[in-house]
């Protein structure tokens, strides 16, 4: 096998999982921790093939609880670390996510959503949107990027590491099995030679220098008030961060009567519907949150302020819908849901739904 390298820029044709592994190489990640689950397995498969060539490490853990917590151990020593999971594994990882939120640990999770609670429907869904944004017994102090293309998977995986190490909140790349498994062309690149600065890491424990101050990291509080102070300080940091990290995509919204709102891979179908309907002279627009957490609430409210209807389409039963309702409640646009838990949404179906309005 030829020696792989990531220098300069390369045009490639790969699956989304392979893209994530390459993005982690580009982000100069030190170690991945993981437990097998479809549809993220190939992230580990590619990583374990790439890792030794780049002096990187991998640990296959006994379950996703362990994958999450070993990763937290890794980041505490100042190493860039991540894990990837899906579905029930995402559920098991939430315990580590809340520890990362409270202790401000720069953990990175790649989630390739799949359907259903157990197995069999292992390829596609958007049913982990709420879980990924708000799972666990905390306040959802996280950054969640919902990608739609392979180029975005690459770009936002790098960005997730930067965001995590800049703001010290856990960061997520929210993909799905379609994105994980399909192949498409994209450009992969060495981040730094492309001008993407990689945020340096820093050990929280285990640094050896003479006369060092010992650190006692904890996640236990003596009083309700003490906990309250910590949560509120985190909330203030999160609020201050939100406008800096929030991202969205909008097209043709300002004169639109109907605005499609979708996230992730569904927004690709919406792009198709938009082109088709605009060609017919229909006044439609598209709004897509890229960060589903923090949610671009103001931006959405602004984008739909002239619209009569907002068509919310998602492969889940109302998870995006709730975020949209919160963002534009009190607005004049009527919200029309198109909820397809666990199944894909095509351009044709969106056009059909539009025609029913």
């Amino acid at each position, binding site marked *: 096998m030829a020696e792989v390298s990531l220098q300069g820029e390369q045009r490639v044709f790969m699956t989304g999982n392979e893209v994530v592994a390459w993005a982690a190489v580009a982000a100069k990640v030190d170690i991945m*921790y993981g437990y097998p689950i479809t549809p993220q397995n190939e992230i580990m498969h590619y990583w374990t093939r790439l890792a030794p060539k780049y002096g990187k490490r991998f640990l296959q853990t*006994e379950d996703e609880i362990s994958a999450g917590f*070993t*990763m937290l151990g*890794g980041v*505490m020593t100042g190493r860039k670390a991540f894990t990837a999971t899906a579905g029930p594994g995402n559920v098991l990882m939430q315990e580590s996510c809340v520890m990362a939120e409270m202790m401000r640990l720069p953990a990175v999770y790649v989630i390739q959503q799949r359907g259903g609670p157990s197995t069999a429907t292992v390829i596609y869904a958007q049913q982990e949107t709420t879980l990924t944004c708000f799972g666990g017994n905390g306040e959802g102090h996280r950054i969640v990027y919902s990608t739609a293309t392979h180029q975005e998977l690459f770009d936002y995986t790098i960005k997730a590491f930067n965001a995590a190490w800049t703001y010290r909140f856990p960061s997520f790349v929210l993909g799905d099995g379609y994105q994980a498994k399909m192949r498409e062309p994209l450009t992969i690149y060495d981040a730094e030679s492309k001008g993407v600065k990689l945020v340096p890491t820093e050990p929280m*424990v*285990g640094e050896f220098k003479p006369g060092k101050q010992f*650190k006692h990291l904890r996640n*236990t509080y003596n009083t309700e008030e003490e906990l309250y102070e910590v949560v509120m300080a985190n909330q203030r940091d999160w609020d201050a961060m939100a406008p800096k990290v929030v991202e969205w995509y909008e097209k043709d919204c300002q004169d639109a009567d109907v605005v499609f709102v979708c996230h992730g891979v569904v927004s690709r179908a919406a792009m198709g519907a938009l082109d088709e309907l605009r060609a017919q002279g229909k006044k439609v627009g598209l709004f897509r949150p890229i960060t589903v957490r923090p949610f671009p609430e103001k931006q959405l409210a602004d984008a739909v302020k002239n619209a009569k209807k907002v068509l919310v389409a998602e492969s889940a039963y109302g998870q995006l819908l709730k975020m949209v309702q919160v963002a534009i409640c009190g607005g004049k646009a009527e919200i029309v849901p198109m909820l397809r838990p666990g199944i894909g949404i095509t351009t044709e179906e969106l056009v059909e739904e539009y025609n029913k309005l």
Partner: protein
Amino acid sequence: MQELKENNVLQPAMPKSWNEETKPHKFCPGCGHGIILKAVGEVIDELGIQDKIVFGCDIGCSLLSWDFFACDSVQTHHGRTTPVITGMKRANTDIIGIAYMGDGGGYAIGSQHLFNAAVRGEKITIILCNNCNYGMTGGQMAPTTLPGMKTETSPYGRDVEQTGYPTKGPEMVAAVAPEGAYVARGTIANVRQLKGFIKKALENQMAGNGISFVECLSSCPTNWRTNAKQTWEFVEKDMAQYFKVGELRTPQAKEGK
């Protein structure tokens, strides 16, 4: 460690690796956790590894040690100390990682982590306090509760028909760990020996041999509702009868076979 004299009275010496500001410690009077951690502190001093230690503690009364040492420390979630320290050691092999936990943390909620860390031969040191119950939550039955022993959730005594026999952790770890493992069971009733076990467990990690695991028979007079005499009797007789004290695996012995 220095001997201190105050008003001409010899004061108990405090290990250098202890965080003086947090002493006296937060455990109940008569609790074994403090005795185990004293042994740990003395060993850290003797090995001169205070700078390299990352001490992880679980949820359970072990969490009261989150600021116990003048060493880098991390308090994690219930049962998750083994993976946190494992993840650290995998990411940075220069640290000396100690995962400190209770019997509930190690043998119940975190048993899959302990088992698999042992199987993989993680190069960390796990120190587990066996006090036959869930101390922090008010004395429920633990995997280590002795047959017939009364706890809040076994008020008529542990019924082995329904709940099985007490978990023998070191035996389990010794059975599954690859070569290079150090496994022992000590007791607070023999601190000199316990200290020796803990020292070997840390030296074994420093030598990069494999997993090191020490279970410590300990006391929980608060939940046992025992006075000093009864407490010692329980540790020395009842516990030691079921849980055999001694070394189960030393790296040399296995390799020499």
